[in-house]
């Protein structure tokens, strides 16, 4: 039971990060129909930006996160501008184009920060809380708290602000949105920027939990992407549920199958999406056949 609860906490912590990554995928996908395979690499850049700033200048971790958000937000805008000719057109080309961007970002990270990784010190170095024998790291609480805060702010933005409403409109029908006087290009750029900001938050948070290195984007991106699919591509509640579900799957696979956890995780994932390709809260049409 104790082991179970301990794994559960670890799973939820990683799940919160996967949920942030998945939300980044989803907001871009629902707004502009673009599947951003470079998202994982943006997360990695976010992790590097935050850790570099945090370790070099000894500013509070929160400030480092904000810096990372600015950096990745800019990168997001650049990627969007480049791929704009392909939006809402050829899915396959778009997908490959973003894979190309992922390779570029990875190469840039190697050039700037070197091919070897770095360990990031824990920003809240206190004893774990002891709850009836289950040890809850304080950093886990921080991760879950920040992820919840970011989710809440995003929900508020999408529901309560005019810009958010405009983005929802573009998501539903970009042609009709144009007819209503919404600048679709700007709205898309905003979605991409927000997605990249979420990536930065995810990257900053995961830094102290993992070893930060240039290739971490690959696995993280794929897991976040898988989480988005599990929840239902393009659905925000789906991204959260999918992220947590994937975090738990990952944690229990690691607990029970040690080294083979990735194999088990991805086989279970493949089976799950085969049984229900639309995910938990999925869009009704996966492949319009």
């Amino acid at each position, binding site marked *: 039971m104790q082991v179970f609860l301990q794994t559960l906490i670890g799973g939820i912590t990683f799940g919160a990060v996967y949920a942030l990554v998945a939300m980044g995928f989803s907001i871009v996908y629902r707004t502009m129909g673009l599947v951003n395979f470079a998202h994982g690499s943006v997360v990695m850049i976010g992790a590097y930006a935050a850790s570099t700033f945090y370790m070099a200048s000894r500013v509070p971790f929160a400030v480092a996160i904000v810096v990372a958000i600015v950096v990745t937000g800019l990168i997001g805008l650049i990627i969007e501008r480049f791929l704009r000719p392909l939006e809402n057109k050829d899915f396959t080309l778009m997908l490959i184009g973003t894979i*190309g961007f992922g390779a570029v970002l990875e190469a840039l990270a190697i050039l700037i920060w070197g091919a070897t990784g770095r360990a990031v010190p824990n920003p809240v170095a206190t004893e774990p809380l002891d709850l009836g024998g289950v040890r809850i790291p304080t950093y886990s609480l921080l991760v879950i708290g920040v992820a919840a805060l970011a989710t809440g702010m995003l929900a508020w933005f999408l529901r309560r602000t005019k810009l958010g409403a405009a983005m929802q409109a573009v998501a539903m029908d970009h042609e009709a949105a144009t007819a209503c006087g919404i600048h679709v290009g700007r709205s898309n750029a905003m979605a991409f920027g927000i997605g990249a900001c979420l990536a930065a938050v995810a990257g900053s948070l995961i830094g102290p939990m993992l070893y930060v290195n240039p290739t971490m984007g690959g696995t993280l991106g794929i897991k976040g992407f898988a989480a988005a699919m599990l929840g239902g591509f393009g659905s925000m509640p789906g991204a959260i549920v999918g992220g947590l579900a994937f975090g738990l799957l990952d944690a229990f696979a690691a607990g029970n199958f040690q080294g083979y956890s990735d194999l088990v995780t991805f086989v279970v994932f493949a089976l799950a999406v085969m049984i229900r390709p639309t995910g938990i809260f999925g869009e009704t049409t996966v*492949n319009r056949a």
Partner: protein
Amino acid sequence: MKRRLLLLAPIAVAAWLLPYGLGGYTMHVVDVAVIFAILAIGLGLTMGVAGQINLAQVAFFGVGAYTVAILTTRTGLSFWPAAVLAILAAVAAGLLVGIPALRMQSHYLGIVTLGLALGFINWVTNAGIAGRAEGISNIPVPPLFGIDLSSGYLFYYLELVVFALVLAFALFVTRSPLGRRMRAMRDDGLAAGALGAEIPLLRMTAFVLSGLYGGVAGLLYAGLIQFVAPETFSISNMFLLLAMVIIGGRASVIGCVIGALGLAFVREALLDVSAYAQLGYGIVVVLVVVFFPQGLAGLPAQVFRRKARERPRLAPFVPYDEAPPTPARTALEIDQVTKRFKGLVALQDVSLSVPVREIRGIVGPNGSGKTTLFNVISGFYTPTAGRVRLDGNAVTGLTPYRLSLEGIARTFQNLRLFEDLTVRDNVLVALDRTRTSWIWRYLALPWAVAGYDRSLRGRAEEVLQRFGLSDFADAIPRLLPYGIQRRVEIARAMASSPSLLLLDEPAAGLNGDEVGRLAEIVRSIRDSGVTVVVIEHNMGLVMSLCDHITVLSGGRVIADGSPDEVAVDPRVVEAYLGDSMTAPTEREAEHDHADR
């Protein structure tokens, strides 16, 4: 063809003489590049030709290489039997990874295949039998009639023979009916299904091919390097492979080969500055995707736009021979069909029966269920209740490709031509009436396939001639005027020699002359013995063309009869014009005015 062969000869001679001018290390680089070229062909076939996003190609490569390594070093099997088993194992892996493709496509498929590839890497880095992170060394050198294949020079010739074989097979497959069906599936899976292409089996075939090429490349790699380790099959190499295929041109086998050879050498040249190399090919991939989606292979066509010598013209339609009269029977019978989408009832107890050699019109306001009815008849939807019979045989719930082989052909409201196939290829896809299980012949009897393809081509010319499309045979449909595209779609449907033709708004977007010619074509099709059901909003055309009309409204049949009967039926008038009896007519309104 002869010119092609002439062109091939110097390349073959150059390839044969190449080792004489190379140093030992360069030879090794060439050997590795050829292996990547084989892998790239496999990826090009699945992704470029069949349109299946497959990001597990390196895993198939790995399965091939590791099977050879494990069997030769752990069980003492000799190289060639292990190699045969390796190919089988890679094909089996292809089948397994392909299963998700039956349920999902595009980015969904991409992420699942990528995940499974990661799973494979995870397994080989952890499993004791696969040598964990250190890999397996001391794989025996393949014996070959006393030729010492540990020399990179001699191994090159083995590779060259294998490469020539797999390249020829890939070119043969892409140019054959199978390749055409795959390209049709890539462009529009729905329309391909409606023309007799068995989509699930085709998708699996694509993955089998991908596994086959991965396996061949893998066993060559094991024989060449005599060492396998997980990092060779990593995700970053998958992206390198992807870059090769995209830069070369994914839809062209030759393009894939050029991309693979080129990038393999560039990577080798920039080995010391690999981060810059990755930066470079990442940027090139982005630029290619945005500006040259066809890759290097598409460049010649993009640069030298062929000028049309003379303006092609649509020739007149050559009517079919009139078929002798057949005894009256029911061609299509729809019995109490209901179709519900969750809460929405699109069709409610629809029954109609169409006698053979009739032109039946289906009319009704928008949203009355006409196209849903077509989708039920042609197998895209399974009805919630009710039965469909074709010539007395129950065909309810059959898949579109089965119905196509049973003799149903259809056109689509918004034109579903295969956009990257020529007009001739569009027709050829429909002419091919074989089941996909026929594909064993591609391996066993390639000459029989070639003969069959020749006969199809002959018949395609006939069809194009009949529909006056000969001048447009090599054109890409989306560049043609709308009226001609409509005619191509009817020609394609008729190429499948149907007994029942369903036309969904064939006159939409046509001008007056074109509508007249359409009526002539449809009558001739009827006279040749084909039963025609047509959905149309152009009432003039419906009234003059159809023998019998069924009117749908709100998912129900509200009238059924000859054009004259239907036109005056008050329920029809009401459905079209609203409850017009209660509104004052122009005359009454005038009267009212005068009274006041």
